[in-house]
């Protein structure tokens, strides 16, 4: 490992614009690793939460209750039609004022929802709004006759959704869902705006402190995202394959 560190030290010396500082300096390396980890955490939390929002929202959208339906519609319109960056700032600075806080020293007001918490909430709501629409498209693709068949077998609306419609709709929705989740992972960089120490935040910090590390660190960000999104896409298509029903045309 020392050899590798020396190698990169040498590169930094020979090429002043190519200082791979995080390859030989433990503090910067720590920043990169913690940034990558935070990005992974954010992504996983947002993926999970936005999927839940999608499934529940799509169910509520098909409800007979007008109020519930308009609520979901309002939610979708708001979160789909406004920029995620503005949502983040609004959630963190404006709504953050109204959440309960605790004070460790009598002055500081630490909100119970941290900036990481707000990032997860806001990004999940953003992606969730799209997920609802994606699932709705999937649900509408399930033939009315299939639904009628399950009703005639005595399934309730909830049971029909759970056991018949959703499993089929999910398969139809997967490609579109795939796209949206890939976008979600990339959108986590915007949490930078509310100082969430994810990969971009740490990278910008590094290249501000060491201007010579600008190009290598930008490259690193690209590479990490290519890998992260690659892993996501691979597992999604694996999931898609494993859920394939022979003979069902998707």
């Amino acid at each position, binding site marked *: 490992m020392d050899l590798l560190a020396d190698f990169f030290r040498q*590169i930094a010396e020979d*090429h*002043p*614009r*190519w200082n*791979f500082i995080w*390859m030989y300096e433990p*503090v910067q390396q720590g920043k*990169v*690793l913690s940034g*990558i*980890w935070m990005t992974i955490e954010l992504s996983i939390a947002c993926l999970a939460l936005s999927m839940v929002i999608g499934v529940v929202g799509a169910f509520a959208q098909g409800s007979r209750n007008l109020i519930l339906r308009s609520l979901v519609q309002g939610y979708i319109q708001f979160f789909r039609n406004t920029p995620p960056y503005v949502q983040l*700032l609004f959630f963190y*600075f404006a709504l*953050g*004022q109204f959440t309960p*806080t605790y004070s460790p*020293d*009598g*002055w*500081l*007001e*630490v*909100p119970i929802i941290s*900036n990481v918490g707000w990032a997860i909430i806001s990004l999940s709501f953003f992606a969730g709004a799209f997920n609802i629409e994606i699932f709705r498209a999937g649900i509408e693709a399930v033939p009315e006759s299939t639904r009628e068949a399950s009703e005639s077998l005595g399934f309730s609306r909830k049971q029909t959704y759970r056991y018949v419609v959703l499993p089929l709709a999910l398969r139809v929705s997967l490609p579109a869902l795939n796209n949206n989740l890939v976008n979600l992972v990339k959108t986590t960089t915007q949490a*930078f*705006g*509310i*100082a969430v120490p994810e990969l971009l*935040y740490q990278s*910008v*910090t590094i290249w*501000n*402190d*060491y*201007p*010579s590390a*600008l*190009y*290598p660190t930008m*490259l*690193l960000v690209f*590479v*990490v995202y*290519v*890998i992260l999104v690659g892993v996501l896409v691979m597992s999604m298509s694996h999931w898609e394959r494993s859920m394939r029903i022979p003979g069902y045309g998707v």
Partner: protein
Amino acid sequence: MMKKMLTSALILVLTSILAFAPLAASADGHACTNDVWNKVMSRGKIVVGVKADYKPWGYRDTSGDIIGMEIDMAKDVAMKMGVDLDLVAVQSSNRMQFLEQGKIDLMIATMSDRKDRREIVGIVGPNYYTSGTNIMSPKALGLTDWEDLRGKPVCGKQGAFYNQIVEERYGAEIIAFTGNAEAKQALRDKKCIAWVYDDSSIGSDLSSGEWEEFEMPLNSEDDNPWALAVPSKERDCVFGRFMSGMQYQWHQDGTLIELEKKWGIKPTRYLADYQERLGDWLAD
């Protein structure tokens, strides 16, 4: 898993070095071509990168125009060159890149003069200003020592070199925002116990009357001169020499001290010393 990922990242990155390194190496020729200088003269317009969120050095007035001490300096530069002035608002975190990529011809943007920055952009002396690092914190907390910041959340701004110093020397937990406005809002919202920044800027914030319950309680540290910059290729050519001359003259004839007064900045010893040192021996 992480180790493995870092290794694969490394391999990709290495391949790209091989592709890019020759480009990087060919960049440092020594002959003066004065490209940027000639471009500015033939275009009849100089594009200067300044701050738009750093009162009173560079900020927006109520009609949205950028004004301030550094803008007055930029105006003087344009006047002496006989060209029009175009101002571009830059951030601490992108100002050097703007200059490198030719989006701006000259940068006068409250930048601290650091060794590693001199390798990227063409910094020329004599430095026109200086400031140290201090914090703005609520009077209620009664902070007295830098050590009081240890383990506490402290708001900062992305791109300031002392974030790292305060973090490493005093163990503060820096929460760095992209802009001053967000960081100061976070302080008002009590999300951090202090806002770490240039003492000069904090001083003018405090005197603006909008920060009654706050103070600048510590002794300033890491006093660091500010630098303007031309593109690095032009540092030892016409443009760099010209900007050295501008700064020398500003010091000698007291322009900087006048500007300091005009913009309500607390007079600094630094400028007074400089004027004394560079003073014209024949002047009365």
